[in-house]
């Protein structure tokens, strides 16, 4: 039996139906080849068995008055044969599987280490310089602006999927992941690298991969410039069931040219306006449970009004109340279960070691920006309130 060949060079039609897309790494392509080999072996076995079954069922179907013909009820040689052949085939699969596993698990020594943090329900990737990506993209986006402008339709229609964070990695680089979970078990899966590993609360886990070289056909739509630029998007999914928003615990891994990556990481590493920082952190880390338009999600909304928002009294589940001031917010981020708002379940993980002081200040500044009241409950003056005029306040 020959070892499987590198599949990415010539992916068969059948393989395309099965995997949908090329594996992004050599180790992934190798295991696809192994999968195809096992699949062809299985198809051959299956066809032989089913052909015999159907042929015999037709040939020896019951006819009135015709007896079954005598035949031996066992045959030692035959039975030894059909024990040894599957055993030998499976030994081959085991050895090749072991080899492919080693390719996926062992990462090169000079690999770039990315820190992956997981919690219910988001991923955060931290780069070697301590920065993390503030970018998000829509899962799917459709609108009929073009038809509207061309006069083909007179009603506006826009459909979007959910919004996910985007993590960047440079092309043709070895990457090693060092992963840890804040709460329950998650699993970090990049289908195009054909590898996943559980992310566990009490220990580090990880795996390595080598990002592909970008081809001229690898492009994605850049949101800022609305043009196709060089890069390749891949999905990251959480593969271990972790609760309500398990299916939203996805992200995009974007492979870009080295210089684009360097510029991005440098930009994220430099200090920003606190509100802008808070807003980008909100989008990547908080949005899944907290709205900013007043709609109730898993956690309380950050929009002001109806007893919510910065500078408003919070009714707590133990019957008491507390003013949402800077210290309340700080405590709620670092130790969320200390004060739980009435009507919500304590399900937020603690962000004690997740956020820097700058990050926490940024988030609080962003909450202040969203609210129409100050930390002592007084109304903000008009100037700062523009953003909330349309949201309405309880006056």
């Amino acid at each position, binding site marked *: 039996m020959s070892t499987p060949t590198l599949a990415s060079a010539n992916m068969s039609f059948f393989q395309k139906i099965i995997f949908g897309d090329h594996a992004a790494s050599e180790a992934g392509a190798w295991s696809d080849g192994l999968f195809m080999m096992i699949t062809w072996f299985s198809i051959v076995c299956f066809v032989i068995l089913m052909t015999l079954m159907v042929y015999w*069922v037709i040939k020896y179907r019951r006819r009135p008055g015709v007896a079954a013909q005598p035949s031996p009820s066992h045959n030692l040689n035959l039975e030894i044969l059909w024990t040894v052949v599957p055993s030998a085939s499976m030994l081959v699969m085991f050895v090749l599987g072991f080899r492919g596993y080693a390719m996926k698990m062992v990462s090169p020594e000079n690999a770039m280490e990315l820190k992956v943090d997981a919690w219910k329900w988001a991923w955060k990737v931290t780069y070697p310089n301590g920065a993390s990506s503030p970018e998000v993209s829509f899962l799917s986006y459709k609108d009929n602006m073009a038809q509207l402008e061309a006069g083909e339709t007179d009603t506006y229609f826009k459909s979007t999927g959910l919004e996910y964070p985007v993590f960047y990695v440079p092309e043709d680089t070895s990457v090693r992941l060092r992963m840890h979970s804040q709460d329950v078990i998650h699993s970090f899966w990049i289908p195009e690298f054909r590898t996943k590993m559980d992310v566990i609360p009490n220990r580090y886990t990880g795996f390595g991969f080598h990002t592909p070289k970008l081809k001229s056909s690898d492009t994605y739509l850049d949101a800022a410039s609305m043009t196709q630029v060089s890069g390749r998007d891949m999905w990251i999914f959480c593969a271990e069931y972790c609760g309500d928003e398990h299916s939203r615990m996805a992200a995009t891994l974007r492979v870009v040219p080295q210089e684009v990556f360097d510029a991005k990481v440098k930009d994220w590493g430099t200090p920003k306006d606190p509100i802008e920082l808070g807003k980008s952190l909100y989008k990547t880390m908080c949005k899944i449970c907290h709205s900013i338009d007043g709609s109730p999600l898993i956690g309380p909304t950050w929009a002001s009004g109806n007893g919510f928002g910065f500078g408003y009294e919070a009714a707590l589940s133990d019957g008491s109340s507390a003013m949402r001031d800077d210290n309340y917010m700080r405590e709620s981020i670092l130790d969320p279960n200390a004060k739980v708002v009435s009507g919500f379940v304590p399900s937020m993980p603690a962000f004690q070691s997740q956020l820097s002081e700058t990050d926490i200040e940024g988030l609080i500044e962003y909450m202040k920006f969203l609210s129409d009241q100050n930390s002592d409950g007084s109304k903000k003056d008009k100037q700062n309130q523009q953003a909330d005029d349309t949201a309405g306040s309880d006056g």
Partner: protein
Amino acid sequence: MTTNDHAHHEGESYFDGPPGILAKVWQWMSTVDHKKIGIMYLVAVLIMFFLGGVSALVVRYELLDPVRTVETLNEAGELVQHTTGQRLAPLVDIMGAQNANEVYNRFFTLHGALMVFMFIIPSIPASMGNFFLPIMLGAKDVAFPRLNLLSWYIYVIGCLFGVLSILMGGVDTGWTFYTPYSTTTDADHWRVILMILAAFILGFSSILTGMNFVVTVHKLRAPGMGWFDMPLFIWGIYATAVIQVLATPVIGITLLLLVFERVMRIGIFDPSMGGDPVLYQHFFWFYSHPVVYVMILPGMAIISEVISVHSRKHIFGYRAIAFSSLGIAAVSFLVWGHHIFTAMGELAAILFSGLTFLVAIPTAIKVFNWIATLYKGSIALNTPMLYALVFLFTFSIGGLTGLPLATLATDIHLHDTYYVVAHFHYVMMGGTVMAFMAGLHHWWPKMFGKMYNERAAMLGCVIVFIGFNITFFTQFFLGTQGMPRRYANYVDEFQTLHIISTYGSWLLLLGFLIHLGTFVASLIAGDKATANPWGGLTLEWETSSPPIEHNFHHEPVVTHGPYDYETIVPPHWDPKDFPLPENPSSH
């Protein structure tokens, strides 16, 4: 056996039950007759199968489309926003959930828990095993008839705990109860504990039934029946019973620890209290992997009977099939790690991968033996045989698609995806449920004394077969292309395959409804069944249909093997219909 007789008399003469219909009910509820208990189990597991099936349909319905936010202009020209694709949203308030995803999560948990703990584990052993194991051994009853009734009551109490938990809103832990999610979710509710206790209680029913069967097989075989004269159905049930007795206490202890963890926060599994969450997975799969064979071995046992009887051939490789059942039972205790390749060290993963391939070999041998049995037979294409052939088709796919899951390099891509979902449905549903249906049609005339409409049953079988393959074959491709399990929502590119799969599930429903109709019609207006409608040689065909209370008028003496179709004329059977071969081979 005298104590059994005594028990019967006691039940009938010393207790004057309430009159009328209540007397009838009481007669059933207090029976120690293994046949009645078998039928009571059958009714109970079918109810659970129905509930589990409904929750599966709900899960598939939600997956028709992904969530999208749509913005349009209303008549007044204002921008309005609404969400599409959350089909279970109307159930949020009814179930007291926080959002539509949680409703979905509860339904897939219910589907798993009901199907595994309440349907598939007890399905064949407790219903058909209870009914036929003593008769096939030539015994009057199981070794401990009262224990048998007790195990049914324990089963029902366990089911009630589960149903109570569902009525309180259901749980969203997944049927595997992985920590620390299961110890922290819905922290202020009792329903998670109720569901865990349901599984704990059901375990006792399983242990008692298993022990009863082991003792019955050892002690109550009819005179003349040696170990290798037993029908293969008995071998399969025996191997199953051994696993039940040895493995179930482990899950009992594990589930109790889980309850302690939730209630008292003792910190065995929760890392924030110094525990290890992966330890739970090892405990859990140490039971739940052997239990995979509790689910499939009885199915294999039925197939051995059905193929042999309906093709009028001696089963090929009797000893190989018998020993492979025991071999599977033994090796099944050593392979639990393949459920957690992505959460364990590299060395352990490699060892478990190698051991996992070992368990595949006896299974492959059985399939070869069944197909070889067809050779030169006189094959009747009736419903039981059709279901046995469907089993060979779907179970072979299930087995072969397990190979990339045992192979480490490919497993860490496929683990926790729809590929795994498809694989175990091909094994559990394509294997056990198809065998269950084969057995039910095979033994229906014996159990109820009525024949069913053969054409309607075959139509049901064909529709179930097509619906099953449409539902689950698509899921292999979903998995390899990147669709994770237990997702209430998904990325757009998977939608086409999900829609096909959901349509298939509706066809499955239609197929099972046809079977339900066939069975009800049979009970009401079916032709009376003869003692031996298929010409079988095992002992259950020597007694009337349905069997008399003590199974046989005289204790049977076994003088021939269970599959000697070439030399023996089946009892109650006209040899004109089934001539013996002219030159019986001597072997």
